[in-house]
């Protein structure tokens, strides 16, 4: 039984999410909103950590995949929502849940596909070039979305409105739990050690038989998939999305979480996601100072403690067990 320790933890987390979700009617709207944002940011940070932290590929375009997931899932629920509800037996939480689930997966799959298309050619590039390409890609997605027809399915510069508020505590934290579980378990396995090897020394990794580019692309695609899920959850929480919400600054937000948490430390980035989401809330009234604070965090972290607040410690503690 002890062999299934991680899986049991995951099931417990899922059950807990469901439990809290059912009681969440009693929670203050405001605090619930913050919690959900924390959860979404955890998903974003943990998924970017796989790419930037564990595999050492500097991606600055995570928000683009979030956008694809957000738009993808929203278009599904907006255009096909009613039809899907009927398929699953009319109104009621089963039908809604199933519809939402399908919409999320479609959105995330589109994001993953895009991640594959972008990753395949770009991940052969050097670190700083990859950063610029992902940044450029982020911009391209934003420009493309902004220039779509205002009355078409993408909504143009004003985006989409009246998205069904399907997101609740269960969905957000179930996905977050799955993200944390899958990524940390993956990295711990022998197969997953390949990501770290690629990060530490690509040439040595290749010489040890590790297909370097394939690993980078896999990390990128998984990261994009989860970012897409986060985007879908985000869209159905806010109920309104616009291209400008997924710009470079949003990508930087997630990068700051990964850097603060320690590139390559799942625990660290989760903590960082919580801290920074809360910080964002406090600074909401001081929007002008928020970015200055974030920028200073970046600069000071890099100079003083580049390994992050809670750097990866598990590499050499009991890692013999997969």
């Amino acid at each position, binding site marked *: 039984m002890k062999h299934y320790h991680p899986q049991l933890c995951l099931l417990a987390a899922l059950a807990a999410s469901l439990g809290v979700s059912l009681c969440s009617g009693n929670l203050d709207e405001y605090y619930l909103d913050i919690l959900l944002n924390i959860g979404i940011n955890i998903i974003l940070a943990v998924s970017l950590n796989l790419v930037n932290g564990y595999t050492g590929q500097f991606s600055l375009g995570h928000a683009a995949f979030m956008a694809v997931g957000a738009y993808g899932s929203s278009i599904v629920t907006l255009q096909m929502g009613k039809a899907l509800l009927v398929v699953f037996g009319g109104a009621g939480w089963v039908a809604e849940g199933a519809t939402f689930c399908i919409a999320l997966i479609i959105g995330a799959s589109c994001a993953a596909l895009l991640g594959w298309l972008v990753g395949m050619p770009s991940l052969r*590039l050097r670190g*700083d070039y990859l950063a610029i390409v992902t940044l*450029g890609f982020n911009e391209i997605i934003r420009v493309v979305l902004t220039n779509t027809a205002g009355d078409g399915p993408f909504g143009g510069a004003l985006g989409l409105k009246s998205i069904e508020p399907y997101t609740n505590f269960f969905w957000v934290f179930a996905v977050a739990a799955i993200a944390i579980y899958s990524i940390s378990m993956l990295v711990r396995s022998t197969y997953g050690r390949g990501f770290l090897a690629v990060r530490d020394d690509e040439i040595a990794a290749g010489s040890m038989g590790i297909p370097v580019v394939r690993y980078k692309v896999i990390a990128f695609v998984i990261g994009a998939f989860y970012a897409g899920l986060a985007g879908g959850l985000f869209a159905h929480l806010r109920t309104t999305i616009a291209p400008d919400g997924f710009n470079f600054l949003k990508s930087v937000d997630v990068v700051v979480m990964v850097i603060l948490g320690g590139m390559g430390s799942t625990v660290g980035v989760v903590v960082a996601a919580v801290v920074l989401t809360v910080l964002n809330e406090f600074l909401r009234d001081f929007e002008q100072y928020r970015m200055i604070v974030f*920028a200073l965090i970046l600069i000071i972290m890099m100079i003083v403690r580049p390994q992050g607040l809670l750097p990866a410690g598990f590499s050499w503690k009991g890692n013999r067990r997969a």
Partner: protein
Amino acid sequence: MEQFIQQLLNGLFLGSIYALIALGYTMVYGVLRFINFAHGDIFMLGAYTGLYLSKALSPLLAVLPWPFGIALVLLLSMLLCAGLGIAIEFLAYRPLRDKPRLNVLITAIGVSLLIEYTAQLFFGATQRPFPTLIPAGNVGGIGALNVTQTQLIVLITALALMFGLRQVVMNTRMGLAMRALSLNPTASALMGVNNSVVISFTFGLGSALAAAGGILYASLYPSIEPFMGILPGLKAFVAAVLGGIGNIPGAALGGLIIGITETLVAGYSQNIGIPSGYRDAVAFVILILILLFKPSGLLGKVEREKV
């Protein structure tokens, strides 16, 4: 046909400004092997220092003939921003001299955001009009072609600065030191070059050019705001990569190509059937194409990693 040549000319003027900014990127990359993300924001600060300098010096500017006026504003602004660039290098990048390149890149992003949002705090987010340092007026043209005085001065100034840079890089000892450092930092240090001084100088020089670019840009499009440096900065970076990062003539060439292509795409967007909002995406498409097919750039050389 005339419209085509007009667009070409417009692109030329824009491209010469991109070239000025691109030169800074490429020089810093040459000596430090990293992309100074914050470079585009020096461009913005150049425009703002130009604004405040012309306000502060307005009595003086009123009596001077306008060429001297703009030259004065330009020079002072360049000096100020050179100092700023040197300070940034010293405070934010120098402590990371031996660290992985990615760390410095992240710091540069931080510096860039810091400059932008502090500028927003101090200067306000709204667009400000840039004073007319060059009197309006056409230099005339052929038929329907039109070149304004401003455009001509922008082009001439940009070319003069690029020529000046070439003189510095090719014919001075400091320029020689820069070239040596970019080829082999260890050897240059052993040959008596004070690497730190050369790096500071390079930053100062690049920042001065960016500041000049800012003032020239603001003269062409006289409305400035704290985030005006982002897009031109990124496009200039693409220009530097296009020409071959680390290659100075390449940066100039890249700037011109990007400027002309962007203007042509924007001008003919109706004909191609794409919304004119796509003009900003042109540079990125060029970037992706170049990195896919010739990552070392048009004039650059391939760098091999020693195994």
